[in-house]
């Protein structure tokens, strides 16, 4: 494992460096600049120029890039341009909220996808299989912005069971926090769960056709046990890879979902940052997302190896 990490680490760092450059470049490619946004709707060029100078945006681009890298290396992320406060604080708060949301969503993804995936592969009666497929299809076909609004209309407005949106700290009021968490997590989890369920179904179907299932049958193991204890573990490694990919999708999906549920996470922060051209916030945030993603990839590779004993010893 150490050698594996040592082998992957340099390339991961390289990815981060490349990403930092891309992030910087993309932001400058997007028209509109922080100064005009900060200056407000009726500002004159003088105000804009003053703000530009104050933010250091009049310096050459490459210098700005190096300056940013320097800041990153010293760990001082500096103040945000438009949102207010220190970038580090903003990101820490947003990260906490998003981590809650994605963790809950991830849990739901697994909790939903596992039985659905197994059912899809083993349903002997046609209606059950059809129902599973109908569900996964519907979930994939209805975009999250529709699902989200529908969920709110149903559970918050009509039934009054859950709040329509917002966020509570898990530490202050855990039960309330869970209520706030439920709908956005479900909304975020559904498409990924559908995708994962599909891959699981596929993997289990493949595994069920393997010779070792025949062995287990010949030994007298029950059908149920064969599916859960023999076929499923073989479908898991590739499912974990899919799950790793889905984490990227979850972060992307968080932008939509956090907006609909007024969830103060990184997705909202990215959107706000981009909308106000808050360069420091967006730059640091995107880099963080890339870093998280790269780490997740590393982790999935490790988990994969852990789940599949054949990999571990090679």
């Amino acid at each position: 494992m150490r050698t594996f990490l040592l082998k992957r680490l340099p390339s991961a760092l390289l990815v981060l460096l490349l990403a930092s450059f891309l992030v910087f470049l993309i932001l400058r490619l997007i028209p509109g600049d922080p100064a005009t946004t900060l200056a407000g709707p009726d500002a004159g060029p003088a105000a804009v120029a003053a703000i530009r100078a104050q933010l250091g945006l009049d310096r050459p681009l490459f210098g700005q890039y190096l300056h940013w890298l320097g800041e990153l290396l010293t760990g001082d992320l500096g103040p945000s341009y438009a949102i207010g406060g220190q970038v580090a604080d903003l990101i820490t708060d947003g990260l906490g909220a998003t981590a809650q949301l994605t963790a809950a969503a991830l849990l739901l993804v697994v909790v939903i996808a596992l039985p659905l995936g197994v059912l899809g592969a083993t349903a002997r009666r046609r209606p059950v299989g059809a129902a599973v497929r109908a569900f996964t299809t519907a979930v994939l076909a209805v975009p999250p912005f529709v699902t989200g609004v529908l969920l709110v209309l149903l559970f918050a407005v009509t039934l009054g069971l859950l709040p329509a949106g917002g966020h509570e700290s898990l530490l202050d009021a855990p039960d309330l926090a869970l209520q706030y968490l439920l709908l956005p997590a479900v909304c975020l989890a559904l498409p990924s769960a559908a995708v994962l369920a599909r891959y699981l179904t596929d993997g289990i179907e493949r595994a069920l056709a393997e010779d070792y299932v025949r062995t287990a049958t010949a030994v007298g193991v029950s059908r149920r046990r064969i599916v859960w204890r023999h076929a499923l573990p073989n479908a898991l490694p590739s499912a974990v890879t899919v799950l790793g990919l889905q984490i990227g999708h979850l972060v992307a999906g968080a932008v939509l979902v956090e907006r609909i549920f007024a969830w103060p996470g990184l997705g909202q922060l990215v959107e706000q940052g981009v909308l106000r051209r808050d360069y420091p916030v967006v730059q640091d945030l995107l880099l963080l997302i890339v870093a998280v993603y790269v780490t997740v990839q590393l982790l999935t590779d490790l988990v994969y190896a852990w789940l599949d004993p054949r990999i571990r010893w090679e």
Partner: protein
Amino acid sequence: ADTATGQATGDAAGPRRGGVLTVGTGVDFTPALLFAQSANTLVQRLVFNTLTRYDDKLQPQPELATSWQVTPDGASVTLKLREDVTFHSGRRFTADDVVFAVKNLQNPARSAQLRSTAAAVTDFRKNGDFELTLVLAHPVSNLFDLFEFMIVPDSATVEEAFAGTKLIGTGPYTFTERKPGSSITFARNEKYWNPGRPYLDGVEIRVVPQAESLLSSLRTGQTHLSYSIRGKDIATLRSDPQFRITPYDTGSGAYYIGANLTAEHVSDKRVRQAVAWAVDRERLVEQALGGYGTVSATPWPKSSPAYSAEAAGHYHHDPERARQLLKDAGLTGISLPFAHSNDPGNTAVAQILQYDLKQVGIETVLQPTDSPTMQKQLIAQSMPALWTLSHGFAQLHPATLAVSAYPFNEAKNSSRFTSPAYTDIVRRAWQRPDSDSPEAKALYGQITDVLLDEQFVIDLAIAGLTEVAVGKARGATLNKFGYLNLDDAYLTA
């Protein structure tokens, strides 16, 4: 007509103390725009006070200033200040704080819209701690707009306020916490100078960016009050007795089409007039604004001294006339780029306009643009031939619009429109001590005439902010700049 401010008329028990009022908004508070007018101005009047406050007839009423004296030539104004006011930090409020507030607005980095008016103040003469004379370079008719607009910050913490970390003012509520993108919370200022006020224990401003979600949070009672509900959503609440709906003249509220006069075709005045005739304003108000708006060809709301029903109805839906104008200009089948903000509401507006223009032979190519890009193009005067947006500031003294609102600014505007005549009238209307004498009104009429003739800004409809409140939330008002005033607000049991 829309003068109601949600007074607690039907409430026999009278105001109740206590409770936390939740206000929903679609846009987060931007600290850097604390001293400017922006999309979220709910915070300003909760934490801070202004010198005066307009009543419904645009007459200034005392706030931090108890009385004022403008010299007849309009060269200076003398203010008497309240003596019982302290900042949340405990420091006493004095004339120095007013001096600081004015100077603060003169700083270009504060990007205050009324900077030109603030800049007209050239000298400060203190007479004790609570009397102050502001000496003006020239008379300004919109002086009290400045006093309505200018919040008085604590000089010691102004940079922290600007960064959004610490807000210290003299207002009814003290700032407790801000979670960017999520909420800002306030607690009652126990030492507020207005005795017995405020009633509420606290206020929470929740940011709900998605319009549907904001509506849902009102419906579920999570939010008590909002000014960010879209007109078409309000229309769906109209029949629900649970909500009180109160339109204001206030805020950023006139929809218009802007024309870049250096662009092909629209440099011709007749083309711009044809556009003005081509638009079905009634349908626009009905379909895009859910009926919450007033058709108008001029920027002025009915409360404005410059308002004239005749001028407001100058342009109406007349495709034939539009086609004739185009023909006169020798143009058939022209195609123009047409920028609009890419949010759903503005996209709908743009599509309606596009369809109407197409009916008279003006093809347009829509350019959905995100607001920072739009902002940059507006300031850089690099807009395409046509665009649609909304503007504010018409609810105040008419001169403020022409000197402070960028679309109309005589010195430099996004349309690249310049005319010595316009500059002259605007300056004359602005640099005078009074604002509603017959001479002043005559000048406003002339401004209106120029606007109607030149049509570099083609006004379509006036739509101020509309308050939507659940039944138990009472007594909230907005000032003319959309600052939320909760001095008298309370929640019924």
